[in-house]
């Protein structure tokens, strides 16, 4: 039996335990079987968001640990084993902080902006396949949805920067928007080259197209067909995330903290969490598009849902580690270099990649 998404997986598990039928009958007797569907969907979304939030907290710890290891330090060590509970303490501290709104700020937009940043950062996960049948909804336009949803964040950043009524916030927001716009184009073009091979925008179809191996050794990942596309996508997504080689939105030495200079307490925490949610989401998208998604060697006697989730997480954490590693190694480029790289080099290369891919697909060299 083929289980398409997490909803059917929950129904399947409940049916196997023998709980689903009686519950369904109760709801059916009131004529409320749609309500049951909604409840199950809410449960799966709650599980997803809880998982994402725990991952984000783990990522903040991991980031500090990786920086510490690169700089020959220990990093957080005191709270919990190896400092693992440090994010919890940070969260408690941030909740306890005073929530300051500047006097001259636009209060409504100032309050709204963190939510507009945070919600899309979580919504990106909906068409992201965490494993075989571990997907909230296999949208037929999944990739388009992901790119469209990530394109909301510059709007929210501009809102935050404008509403703060602070020159540093506004400058940071302007830079972030310029950067996001110039790097979304090569990002989308590199993703389209993958879509040419799969002829589908659905993330599950993209992952399924990467199953199997060539000659029994090389996995059929798109990184081997699309090395240029992979590099372009990686650079563009690091730039879109605003991580260190391209962190103009919050370059501490020039702008105090960029667009969230004026934010404190829980609102600051939401920007902070959204940043790490974005990191996790983008790494997941890179894995889905280029690194074979949840594909991996099949292990007998273990449900494929579990093994595929493990493969997905291993690959995602490898990409996340690369992003953190790069952050600790490379200094920030200049703003003109950033825009030159985006417009003059990445977009022509992405178009060239698309052209070559088009020829290859039309010629039918690689199936």
């Amino acid at each position, binding site marked *: 039996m083929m289980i398409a998404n997490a909803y059917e997986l929950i129904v399947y598990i409940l049916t196997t335990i023998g709980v689903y039928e009686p519950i369904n009958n109760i709801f059916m007797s009131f004529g409320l079987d749609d309500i049951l569907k909604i409840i199950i969907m809410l449960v799966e979304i709650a599980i997803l968001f809880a998982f994402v939030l725990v991952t984000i907290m783990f990522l903040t710890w991991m980031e500090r640990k990786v920086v510490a*290891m*690169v700089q*020959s*330090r220990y990093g957080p*060590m005191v709270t919990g084993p190896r400092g693992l509970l440090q994010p919890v303490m940070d969260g408690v501290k941030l909740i306890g902080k005073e929530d300051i709104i500047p006097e001259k700020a636009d209060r409504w937009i100032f309050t709204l902006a963190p939510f507009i940043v945070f919600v899309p950062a979580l919504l990106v996960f909906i068409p992201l396949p965490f494993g075989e049948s571990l997907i909230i909804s296999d949208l037929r336009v999944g990739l388009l949805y992901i790119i469209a949803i990530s394109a909301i964040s510059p709007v929210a950043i501009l809102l935050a920067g404008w509403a703060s009524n602070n020159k540093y916030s506004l400058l940071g927001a302007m830079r972030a928007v310029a950067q996001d716009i110039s790097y979304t184009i090569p990002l989308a073009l590199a993703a389209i080259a993958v879509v040419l091979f799969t002829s589908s925008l659905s993330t599950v179809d993209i992952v399924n197209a990467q199953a199997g191996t060539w000659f029994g050794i090389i996995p059929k990942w798109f990184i081997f067909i699309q090395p240029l596309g992979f590099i372009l996508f990686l650079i563009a997504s690091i730039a879109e995330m605003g991580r260190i080689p391209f962190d103009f939105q919050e370059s501490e030495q020039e702008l105090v903290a960029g667009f969230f200079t004026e934010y404190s307490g829980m609102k600051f925490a939401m920007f902070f969490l959204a940043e790490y949610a974005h990191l996790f989401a983008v790494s997941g998208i890179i894995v889905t598009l280029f690194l074979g998604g949840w594909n991996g060697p099949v292990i007998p006697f273990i449900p494929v849902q579990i093994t595929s989730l493990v493969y997905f997480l291993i690959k995602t954490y490898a990409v996340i580690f690369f992003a953190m590693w790069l952050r600790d190694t490379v200094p920030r480029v200049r703003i003109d270099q950033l825009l*030159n*790289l985006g417009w*003059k080099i990445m977009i022509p290369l992405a178009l060239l990649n698309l052209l070559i891919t088009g020829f290859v697909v039309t010629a039918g060299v690689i199936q």
Partner: protein
Amino acid sequence: MTWISKNWTMTGIITGLMVTLKHVLHIGNRPTVTVQYPYERMKLAPRFRGRHAVDEDACIGCGICEVSCPNSTIRIVKYKGRWFPEFNLGMCLFCGLCLDACPMNAIKMDRGYELADYTRESLIYGPDRLLFKKEVNK
């Protein structure tokens, strides 16, 4: 555009990444150099200059240390019927000139360095906190 045409292979970035990776994996002589401060401490230098201590038997209360102090840290006060120096560590710069000036070698500098306190008054170390008695071998 010149910067990227010269370095289009990005060997500099890859070399840098390799160096940081060696630090992460502790390859070669790259140990963790910091210590978990409140739980473990750095080894102090043998001639470390920390908090002062005054030998109760040797001090003659002459006041030469008071004169020699560049920051007027030292004041001579009466304690148990004798004159002893009193150190205001809030002003002390730990130069050690009082040690050199003392004719009886009564002042020495201890290894204590955790001297932070809540008020300025509690930084004034009177003889009650400074005096020590040298063990005499009989």
